[in-house]
């Protein structure tokens, strides 16, 4: 009897619990995803459809590459339709969604692929200039994108095209990590490489990369002059041979060349010029006394020339000095050049005046029509004995114990 009661009560319990179970399942409506497609093309209309037993309108959480939102459905004869907004449906990537109904979450995801046509070839090329010689290179990066600005998936074929002199190349590259890239190496020649690319029949615009010559190698120099005399008047022009790199490309214009001129005293003169078509020229006025120049040119820190030697001959053999007006008026000249012609104006003449064997004063003047005139003023040069030295064109004449009065 005892057992019977127990059984009955157990049976009742079981019945009751199953009853409550049924109750529960009726309270929570079933949602079944009716949309089986899990891949869509960017920009297409995407709708997620759920069939449901009851008229409710739960929100759909939806998250794409750039952001998340909540979507309100439309309800139509037991079907809930969630229209995915264009800001989600136009961008590639995985979209995950969750149907939010009380505590029960139904979730899933779908993927959006780019459209199958390329709308623009996003191209980056750099560096924009490289060096000739076959070791330096530039990099072409191409991101083919569709009309919604989506990059293409892995292994999309891209043609990288480039032309240089007589060679035109057309190389196949494949997208990886959303981009495709190609290293374009220089050749031995300098010049300009034209680059473009193509993907799924769409071509990019033209890009260009300048190939500059490599660094110069050692070169020669020469000098031209009207005569070999040290007249302090004519100009010697120095020029380089055509400066080239090791592949025989003429170096870029305006390569800076410096000429160093060392004379017999060890003094250094410097003159410089920039190349045009590989040749740099530079000028220097002749010395006004007999000397010899050793000339060498440099492209600073990169290349140098051979040494050349230039000799400058003495032009003035001798000159007269005339003392007048109580020895206060001194005329030097006439100064005559190599053909006994009057030396062109501007030759420097120095007068050194010593008093008691110490230098008292120096007067400097330049020649005019072959003559130089010094006037020793009474205010400065008191009446006394002076030693007067005249220097010009590397020559020197001394007059001891000249008395000024």
């Amino acid at each position, binding site marked *: 009897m005892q057992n019977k009661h127990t059984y009955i009560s157990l049976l009742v319990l079981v019945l009751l619990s199953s009853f409550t179970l049924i109750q529960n399942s009726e309270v929570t409506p079933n949602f079944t995803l009716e949309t089986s497609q899990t891949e869509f093309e960017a920009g297409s209309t995407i709708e997620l459809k759920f069939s449901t037993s009851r008229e409710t309108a739960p*929100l759909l*959480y939806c*998250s*794409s*590459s*750039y*952001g*998340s*939102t*909540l979507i*309100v459905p439309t309800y139509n004869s037991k079907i809930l339709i969630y229209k995915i*907004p*264009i*800001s989600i449906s136009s*961008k*590639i*990537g*995985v*979209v*995950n969604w*969750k149907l*939010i109904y009380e505590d029960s979450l139904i*979730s899933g*995801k779908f993927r959006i692929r780019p459209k199958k046509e390329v709308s623009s070839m996003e191209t*980056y090329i*750099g*560096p924009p200039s490289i060096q000739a010689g076959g070791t330096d*290179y*530039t*990099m072409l*990066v191409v*991101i083919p994108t569709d009309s919604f*600005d*989506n*990059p293409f998936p892995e292994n999309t074929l891209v043609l990288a095209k480039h032309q240089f002199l007589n060679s035109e190349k057309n190389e196949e590259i494949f997208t990886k*990590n*959303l*981009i495709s*890239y190609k*290293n374009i190496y220089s050749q031995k020649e300098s010049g300009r490489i034209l680059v473009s690319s193509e993907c799924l029949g769409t071509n990019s615009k033209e890009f260009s990369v300048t190939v500059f010559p490599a660094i110069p190698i050692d070169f020669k120099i020469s000098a031209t002059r009207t005569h070999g005399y040290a007249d302090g008047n004519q100009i010697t022009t120095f020029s380089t041979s055509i400066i080239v790199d090791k592949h025989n490309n003429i170096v870029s214009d305006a390569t800076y060349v410096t000429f160093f001129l060392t004379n017999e005293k060890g003094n250094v003169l410097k003159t410089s010029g920039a190349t045009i078509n590989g040749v740099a020229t530079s000028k220097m006025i002749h010395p006004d006394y007999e000397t010899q120049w050793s000339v060498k040119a440099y492209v600073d820190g990169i290349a140098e020339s051979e040494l050349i030697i230039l000799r400058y001959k003495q032009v003035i053999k001798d000159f007269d000095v005339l003392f007048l007006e109580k020895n206060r008026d001194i005329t030097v000249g006439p100064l005559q050049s190599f053909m006994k012609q009057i030396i062109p104006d501007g030759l420097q003449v120095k007068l050194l005046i010593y008093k008691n064997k110490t230098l008292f004063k120096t007067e400097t003047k330049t020649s005019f029509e072959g003559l130089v005139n010094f006037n020793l003023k009474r205010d400065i040069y008191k009446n006394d004995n002076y030693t007067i030295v005249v220097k010009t064109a590397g020559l020197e004449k001394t007059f001891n114990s000249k008395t000024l009065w």
Partner: protein
Amino acid sequence: MVNLNKNITRSILIASYILIIVIIISGISSLFAYLNTGADRSSMLHTKLEKIEQYIPEVTWAPLNNEGRPMDELILNKIENDYLDAWYVKHVAYKTNTTLGIKDYYTDNARNNIFAFIALNSKEKVTVESTTLNHHPTLEFFSEDGQLAVITDKDVIEYKRVFKDGKLILETKEKSTYKIIFLLEDGFWRIRHFVKEKSENFKTEPNLRVAKHLNIKGINYYPQATPWDMFGDAFLKSTIFNDFKIIKNSGLNSIRVFVQYDDFGKADIDKEKLEKLRLTLDAAEENGLKVVITLFDFYGDYSVLNWTLNMHHAKTIISGLKDHKAIIAWDIKNEPNLDFDSRGKVNVISWLDNMIDLVKSIDPNHAVTIGWSNVQSASILKDKVDFISFHYYESLDNLDTSIKKLKKQTSNKPIVMGEFGISSYKGFWKPLGGSDIKQAKYHEKVQKIIVENDLQFISWTLYDFVNIPKEVVGSLPWRKNIQKKYGFIDGNGTKKVAFKYISGQ
């Protein structure tokens, strides 16, 4: 008489004259002083730019093995900074549906996608509070001219809260993989393309530790002279060592100490404070005591955008101390349920939930709990904590029933009563209040309940305090004065009657 009056008038006149002069001079001088405050001249040139960390999720770079140009550390850092800033401005944008800052970190074309989302969400009145907790970027490609980079960011843990019309609709944690193309523009590494490659729901396992071995008989500890400022300038290891000796000799085996969030330097941990905490642990170890460290004391902002800062704070402290032998458990936060009303229950609980995961991921060995302020809240997150902890300052009559109920709810997890006690204060503010005898009786009774229910305990507190900062109980004297008298040892260092029951032995 007339003369006297005259003199009085005179002196009043002179005094008032002096007074007026004093007022005028002090007025002018304070005006000058005011004009000299504020920006000093050196700051006009902005020569010193201080970087304020506002977003520091954990970033783990894969070893560099990229195609293209070799990457250097400096550029990689710059990319990382700009990338995290890009996330940050995006979080802010979707939280507020405004476009502030987006332009700096997304190129012309990329930013349109974000603007479109903002337009959509503003129209639908949807806002998203989000943050990312982990990033695992790999540098895939760096272009020869150093202007373009591609990274794959694997297993980005994103936490989001989605609201519609201001109402929370969904809370979600996702693990996603992104591919990102960056362009160097105007000195910024801007995002050009952003593609989500993979995404799945992210759920952490409770990852429970065995807490059965715990046998905490402890006391909440602050030094007598510096309550709530334990690691300040007055920190002395010898004081703490002596106190720990008293605790150990009384038969207790553990203490509970507090790490204040601001005091320890927020996201940028103050090394000195951390060192003092370590010395405290050393002192505990030398005395054979175990330590429960309570984190995030006095922290009250649970906003999603600050999560990464909080996590960084916790990570620095825990990874620095997790191998210390004195540590027995981490208490995530002291009485977080008190912030339910002001900060929102969902905010607080999800913050705690996330923080438990973090602490457990850094320290795989020690138990984790939350120090709830009452029994009613103690079952929150019961499946994630390793032992239950609650504080009890109510009438002891209900304690037994409450514990029995809690035990049922929490399927017999170990329970620690993390704070309890009674003030022996009797005086102007509470004439009929406590006394040392009443306090002793209270502790006698509590210990009985503890034994009966097989509880573990950490009582409040060792000392009576003289000064209590107003942050603790406010500045009202009737609360402050009572708070001062919870100790087992009084202000003069004499053991109170209750000391007999301190460890229930």
